[in-house]
Every structure is written in C-alpha cells, then in structure tokens.
C-alpha cells in the first residue's frame, strides 16, 4: 500500500534510461492527469503520470483491468486530451505527431470497416497517406501472410472469427510501417501458438526497423518476452506503480522462457501486480 501512495516511489524518467545514450526521447509525459467527468462522480482515469520512452524502446503497460492502460495509450495517440500535465511525442505535441503520421494504432477491438474486405481494409491507411498502388499490394500480401490470413484477402470482416479480425487489424497497422506502434492488447484474442508466432514476428519487425513500440497486455509472459521496459499500473486513480527495466537481451527467443532470468522478471512483475491487487 505505501508503495502505491508515496509519490517518491513513483518511477521517474531516469529509470527508463537505457544503455545506448544515442536514443532520442520518443515520448515524454510529465505530471499528466485525466479525469472523466460523470454525473455520479468523476472518474480519475489517470493521475500524476510521469514517463519517458526512448526511441527504439519496447514498452509494455500492464495492470489490472480498468487501471487506465487504454486511456494512457489514447492520450499518447491524441485521441483523448489530458486534464492537466504535458505530453511530448517525438519532441512535438501529440497532435503534431499524429498529423505527421508518426504512429500506427491497434485498437482493443478490431475496428474494421464493414464495407471493405480484408485487403481493402488493410489498404485504407496507405490510401490515406497516398502510397503507390503497387507498394500497397506488396505490403498487404506481406503482412496478411505474416498474420496467417493469406487466404482471406477477399473476405469481409463479418465473415471472420474474432481472432482473425484482430489479426487483420494488426496487419493493417503494420502495412503502414510507422516509427511508433501503439498496440492495445493486440493479441488478446489469439491462441498461444498463434500468439507466440505473432510475438516473434513483432519482435523481428521491431528490431529490424528500429521502431518504438508501446504495448498494452494482460499477459506477464508476453510483457517479459517482448519488452525492454515494463510499466506496472494501478487503478483508481490510474497511476504508474513501477517501471521495470528488463535485464534480458533486446532480441529474445521463445527458448528464453525456460531461463531463470525470465522467471525472475516475471515474478517481479507478478508480485508488483499482486501487491496492487492486495490493496484493492
């Protein structure tokens, strides 16, 4: 309990510093709060958030349901305005970053347009940023294959299973090849094996293209397997409880899961979360 409530133990930006000093600051959040006004009492969705994410980092948000993970991601994406505090994305404010098409966002729900088939849905962001038709179809072929939907180019969203829809929406975001990827529980509806596969593919893409990834997940294993930093959040009001820097190598393999370092990190996260739940 004292941990969550003493401001001193709140992570500060220094904790996120990584080995490579060449990294730019990609996201800088300073004293940010967000309140949803509501008739029967305001909801403090985010409170006093301080966080710095460097470019090339893979940062996961983890925390109990309703703790504000989605809200924080939405603030970064300029989909929600903070009530107070400042936020810089790639040195500019969130709106400019969005206008510069800096990031790709994968929503918690698939958000596919029902009048477009899967291929056309994936083409949408590229059409909007005016990429060539040829490039579009190359990207679509590549990423639909990657997510295992190569046979579903012409199907409409309502003809796919929940997990397939989610994979299509991931392919759509990847097609755009943005510097910053914001992903809200992208693999929540996938089975373990597909999920492992997608995790590995995401890691590969991330390291090959030097992207920054901000990732919301409920799976401790997934957080450990993917992240360079893990941000543990606590609810009511939503705040950052702990920021853990991963001691594991940047590029991990599935085999790592059997290593003791992996389990050590996972337990650290688990106990941080359990502590939080205990308070509840």
């Amino acid at each position, binding site marked *: 309990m004292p941990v969550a409530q003493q401001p001193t133990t709140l992570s500060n930006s220094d904790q996120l510093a990584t080995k490579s000093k060449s990294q730019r600051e990609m996201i800088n959040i300073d004293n940010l709060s967000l309140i949803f006004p509501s008739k029967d009492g305001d909801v403090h969705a985010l409170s006093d958030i301080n966080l710095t994410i460097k470019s090339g980092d893979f940062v996961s948000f983890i925390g109990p349901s309703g703790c504000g993970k989605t809200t924080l991601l*939405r603030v970064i*994406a*300029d*989909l929600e305005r903070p009530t107070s505090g400042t936020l810089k994305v790639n040195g500019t404010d969130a709106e400019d970053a*969005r*206008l*510069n*098409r800096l*990031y*790709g*966002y994968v*929503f918690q*729900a*698939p*958000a*596919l*347009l*029902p*009048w477009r088939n899967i291929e056309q849905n994936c083409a*949408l*962001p590229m*059409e*909007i*940023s005016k990429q060539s038709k040829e490039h579009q179809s190359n990207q679509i072929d590549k990423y639909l294959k990657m997510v295992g939907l190569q046979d579903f180019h012409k199907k*409409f*969203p*309502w*003809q*796919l299973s929940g997990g397939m*829809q989610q994979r299509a929406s991931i392919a759509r975001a990847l097609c755009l090849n943005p510097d910053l990827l914001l992903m809200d529980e992208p693999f929540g509806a996938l089975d373990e094996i597909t999920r492992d596969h997608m995790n590995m593919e995401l890691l590969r893409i991330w390291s090959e293209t030097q992207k920054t990834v901000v990732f919301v997940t409920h799976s401790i294993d997934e957080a450990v397997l993917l992240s360079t930093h893990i941000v543990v959040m606590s609810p009511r009001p939503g705040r950052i409880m702990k920021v853990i820097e991963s001691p594991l190598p940047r590029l991990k393999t599935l085999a790592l899961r059997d290593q003791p370092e992996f389990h050590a990190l996972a337990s650290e996260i688990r106990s941080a979360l359990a502590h939080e739940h205990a308070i509840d």
Partner: protein
Amino acid sequence: MPNTFKNFIYTALILLQLFLVSSSDIGFYQSNPLLILLLIVSLYSMAKLLAKLTTIENQYTIVKPIIPSLFAFMLVLTWESIIKGYAVSPVLMPAPSNIFDAFINNIPMLWADFKQTYLKAVLAGYVIGCFSGFIVAQWAVKSKLLRDGLIPLGNFMSAIPIVGIAPIMVMWFGFDWQSKAAVIVIMTFFPMFINTLTGLQSTDALHKDLMHTYAAKKSQIFFKNQLPHALPFIFNALKLNSALALIGAIVAEFFGTPIVGMGFRISTEVGRMNMDLVWATIVVAGIAGSLSYGALALLERSLLFWHPSYRGGRSS
C-alpha cells in the same frame, strides 16, 4: 393431404366471389343482404392463403411478388363487390373495372400527362433537390458555423407547407413544368439535407478514432468513412423524396398549369365527374411512385450489401 384440400376450398370460395361480382346485377347486396357473407368468407380465405404463401416464400423466390399482388387482387375484388353490390354512384366512387376501362381507353392522354408531370417536373426537381441537399449537407458537416445556421433554418423551411409554396412558385416560374420542379426542389432539399447530415455524423466512434489516428484529411474521412456510414440515411431520403416529389408536382398543378399533366387531370376530371379517369390517373401515379421506390430499394440493397440489415454473418 388435407392441406391441399383446404387450399382448394379457399381458392374456390374466392373464385365464387369473383363470379358473383362479374355476373350479378348491380345492387346485389341490396337485393340479397346474405351475399355479403360470401365476401367475408372469401376475405378470410385469402388471408389464409397469403399466410400459407409466406411460409414457402423463402423456398421459391417467384412467390415474393405474388403475395402483394394477391393482396391487391382481394382489395380490388372487395372494392368492386361493394361498389357493384350497393350500387354506389359512379360520381362518388368508381368500380375498379370502370377504372380499368378508363385507363385502357385513355392511354395516349395518360401518357402525355405522365410525360409532363413525371418525366419533366418530377425528374428535374428530384435530381436538383436531392443533389443540392447532399452538397449543402456535405458542406455543413465540415463547418460548424454553417451547420448551426442551417439546421434551425432547415427545420423552419421544412415546416413550410408545399401548398403554400406552390402558388408562389407558379407566380414566379410560370405555368409550365418549371414551377412544379421548383416546388419539388424545395420539398426534397431538406429531407436530403437533414438525412445526409445525420448520416455523415453517425459514424462509429471507433472508426472515427481510427481515421483520426491516420491523420486523414477531411475529404478522405468523408469518402472513406462518413459517406459509407451515411449511405443508409441517404437512401432513406432518396426513397422518401421519390414519394414526396410526385405529390409535390401534382399538388402544384392545382395552382395553375397548361392543360396537361396528372395534377391537372385529377382536378379537372373531379369537376367533370369523371371519377374513373381520376382514379386511373391516381393508379398511374401509384405505379410510377412504387416503381421508382422499388428501384431505389433494389439499388440500396446492392450497395449496402455489408450493412447488418442486409448481410448475414456476425457483428463486427
């Protein structure tokens, strides 16, 4: 099969009523009030037959148009029976058979009326009205300023009764079809405007967020997200307007016209006690209106294949 037998009885009863109507003397209900029972029984039979037909509707698509036709047939038969059976004066209400005769005997005249009212006034007014309503709505959705001004004004204008506008339009645009087209433009503009606006604003919150993350330009948001979402609303307006336009043209013709046109025909022949011709013209109007409505509904169905109301599959 008892079912086939039942159906046979039902059909026979209806045919009996048909025979009664076509062979008896005028006023048969007055001379023999019990005959009215047959009408009631055959109405009941038809209801039964229709219910039966709907159950097999999904198996045989040809059944589909038969059902409303049979319904109409029964309506017409009842109408004919009552007019003939109670010897209702043709000055009040003609029998369907008289209407049919009037229709057949006056095809060139009815065609000329149709050309004047539908092919000139209605088409021109409908196209201009719907198109401009759409264009203005599409401006309004971009500009809050325009929207705040136009919506109350639009509500105000759509409350203006056509019957009041028609004489003014006749005064301004002359007696010919142009004034009718002007009435239709005014009538159809606001339904289109309001529907398009609502439709363009009705986009799914999640899809709105999605376009937001793409930093899509207004025109891109419009064509790729808002317009598809608005299509069901736009079709609503198109269908509503197709009925409104015809009414508008006919009403406007009451206030002055050259001596041709469906509205002219109706108002003049009422005065001349040619009720059969009046109803023949009404039938033409009904057919024209229903056909255009039906055509729009078909188009809607094919364009909105993805909409939950038309497609199968699950929610997405």
